[in-house]
Structure formats: structure tokens, C-alpha cells
């Protein structure tokens, strides 16, 4: 145990700036993925709820496949598979990670959005149509403002999960915290110290994030209940 602290003490000043920089890269990867996943999720849920059968079944298939496959496999298909099948279509590791995780995130968010929309009483839509709103207006002005409150808690869980799942991108060498920890661990031969530090840094990012979402829920959900 003393060896642990002595080694940690020796390396700490050297590692910490690099690990903190890598934390920013992890946050960047999380943010970029989220920015891809949200519009994609909206498109997929639009197709999923569409009355056109082919669109609907395409969305169902996409959701099942993207959610049922491990993120690691999706990343490997995008990063290694695509360039081998279509020469010239090679993405760098960061882009591949954003595309792969974003694709899976889009499917996860689509299901979250759908459950939010379907939780709104059908009468709301019927009433909107009765007073002369178009289906589009009913969705945007009546259903969506209520549905997003229901969707917020699972979206928060998704974001916190995503922050941790970005660690998987280290396996395709995308620049983020886990990769930096792995590199430092193999150059210093101190895996325990570095992986514990990395785990702590993940915790220091994900715990405040989950508390933030909990705070947001508390502010938003009472407003929904009083209605």
C-alpha cells in the first residue's frame, strides 16, 4: 500500500495536467456525440411515429439494431469495417467515435422521445385537431412542450451513461481520458495508480452531471404536476 502512495506521489505532478487535458477531450467527445444524437433521435422518432409503414419499419429496425449491438461493435464497424468495405471512406478515430456513439445515441433517444410523446394523453392531440390545429402544430405547440418534461429524466441518464461510454472509444484510439490513462500506464508501468486516477476523474465529471440533471428535474417536474 505504501508503494501505491509513493509511486502516485512521484508521478502525480507529471500525469495530472495530461489527464485533465484528456478530461476536456472526454467532455468534447460527449458533447459532440450528444449534438449528433439529438437531431438523429428526433428524425428517427419522427419516422417511428409516421403513418407510412416503410418509414416506420425502417425506424423500428434501426432502433432495435443500434440498441441491441454493443457500442464497441458499432465503433469497430465504423472505424475498421467502413474503410475496408468502401476504400476511401476512412474516418479518423474521433469522427468514427462520434458517428458510432451518435448513431447508437440517436436510437436510444428516439425511444426516450417516443415514450415521452406516447405518455401524453391522446385527448390532447384530438382536442388540438378539433380546434383546427394541423397535426404538425399539435405536435409542436401542444404535445412536445409536455413530452419533454417526461423525457428529461431518461435523457439525463443517457447523457451520464454516454460520458462513461466514451471510455469505450479509447479502444479505437480516439483521444479521451481512458486512452491517455492507458498510455501513461504503459509508459510508467503503474497501471493501478493511473486507472484509479482515471476512475476518480470520471466520477468527478459524472457525479456533478447527474446531480445537475436531478436538479433540473426538480425544477421542471413540479411545473408539470400543477397542470
Amino acid at each position, binding site marked *: 500500500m505504501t508503494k501505491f502512495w509513493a509511486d502516485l506521489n512521484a508521478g502525480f505532478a507529471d500525469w495530472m495536467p495530461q489527464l485533465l487535458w484528456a478530461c476536456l477531450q472526454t467532455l468534447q467527445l460527449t458533447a459532440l456525440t450528444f449534438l449528433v444524437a439529438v437531431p438523429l433521435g428526433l428524425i428517427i422518432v419522427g419516422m417511428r411515429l409516421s403513418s407510412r409503414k416503410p418509414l416506420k419499419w425502417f425506424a423500428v429496425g434501426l432502433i432495435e439494431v443500434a440498441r441491441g*449491438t454493443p457500442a*464497441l461493435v458499432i465503433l469497430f464497424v465504423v472505424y475498421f469495417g467502413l474503410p475496408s468495405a468502401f476504400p476511401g471512406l476512412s474516418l479518423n478515430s474521433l469522427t468514427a467515435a462520434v458517428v458510432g456513439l451518435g448513431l447508437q445515441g440517436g436510437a436510444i433517444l428516439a425511444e426516450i422521445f417516443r415514450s415521452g410523446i406516447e405518455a401524453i394523453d391522446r385527448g390532447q392531440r384530438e382536442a388540438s385537431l378539433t380546434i383546427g390545429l394541423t397535426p404538425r402544430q399539435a405536435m409542436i405547440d401542444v404535445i412536445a412542450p409536455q413530452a419533454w418534461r417526461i423525457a428529461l429524466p431518461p435523457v439525463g441518464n443517457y447523457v451520464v451513461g454516454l460520458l462513461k461510454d466514451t471510455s*469505450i472509444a479509447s479502444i479505437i484510439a480516439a483521444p479521451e481520458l481512458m486512452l491517455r490513462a492507458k498510455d501513461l500506464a504503459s509508459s510508467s508501468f503503474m*497501471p493501478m495508480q493511473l486507472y*484509479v486516477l482515471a476512475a476518480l476523474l*470520471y466520477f468527478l465529471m459524472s457525479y456533478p452531471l447527474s446531480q445537475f440533471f436531478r436538479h433540473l428535474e426538480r425544477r421542471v417536474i413540479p411545473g408539470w404536476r400543477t397542470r
Partner: protein
Amino acid sequence: MERYFTFLLGGVWVSVQAAAGALIFATLLGLLLALMLLSRNGLLFYIARAWVELIRGTPALAQLFILYFGLADFGLRMHPLVAAIVGLGINGSAYLAEIFRSGIQAVDHGQTEAGRSLGLSPFWVTYDVVLPQAGRMMVPPFVNYGVQLLKDTSLISTIAVPEIMFRARNLVMETYDSMTIYLLVAALYLSISIPLSQLASYLQARSMRASQ
């Protein structure tokens, strides 16, 4: 293609073993943690709470690396499959503890009071009244956790457990046929995860009907 398939199928068996081992480990530890979370002893409660938050706040990959590479550096060299089962089991214990706890707490307190006023002892109230109702509520999230766990076994390829993904990576190194192989891997995972998640939504629908 057929050669790939037979080779990868051997990995499916390893993945299922790892998932089953981790599921048992996580269930036992999760039950213990849930009891601690529900206990009136402040110390036990805070230990369990901290464990759950710490485990849920860190990536499974980091946990696996600490167990496998970190401990090896301190003289505890685990068999990769053992490290995988313990690592994924520890990871799952935090999620299952919350599932078990919320299931038990979701049973109306009036049920306990009614059981007690009928003269049942606290033990029998828990065993005969609370747990059967709580259990029904826990089943769908438990199966969902199983699906998640199965997908997470792909991570143990990084600590050299010869499961589906590890074998696929070796095949690719030999053949460079990465698209075919990784799509085949995806299909193998889907062939297990889709039926399992269908089961979860069926059970969910059934338990919702039962509670109405």
C-alpha cells in the same frame, strides 16, 4: 464465412459464461447492498450509498482495468475470465442494488402495516407480503440489466478473454475482412439481445396489467 461463424460461435459460449457468472455475482452483491440501503443502520447505509454512487459514476472499462492490470501490478494476477466476472459483477451490483431497493420501496407501506396488524411477524411480512409484490416489479428491469450486461461483455475482450469480440479481432488480423466479421459479430449479439429485450417488454406489459 462459415469458418468465421464457427470460430465466433465458440466466443458466444465464453460471452454467455462471463455474463452468467457476472449476473450471479452481481445479484448476490446487489441483494446485500439493497439490504444495506434499506437498513436503519446509518453506517451500513452510507457505505452502500457510496459504493453505488462510485460504481455508477465510473466506466466499466476503468473498473476492469483496475482489477486486471492494476491488481496484477500489486501481485494479484487474476485469470482474465475471473477478472471479467468480478469486474462486470461489481459494476452490475450497483445497478441491481438500486433495482432491488426501488422495487421493495415501491410496495405501499400500508401492505406492511396490514400484514403486521394481522399478527404476522416482521420477517413473514417481508417474506410473504412485500417480496412477492416487489419481485414482480423487479423482473422487467432485471432482464433489461441482463441485456445490458450481455452487451457489456464485449468490453472484456480488452483484458484478453476469448469471447466473441476478442476472437473477431484476431480473425480480422488474419484476414483483413473487417466489415464481414464485425457485421457477423453484430448479428450474433443481436440474435441474443433482441429476444431478451422482447422478453423484458413482454414482462413489463404483463406486470403493468397485473398491477392494475
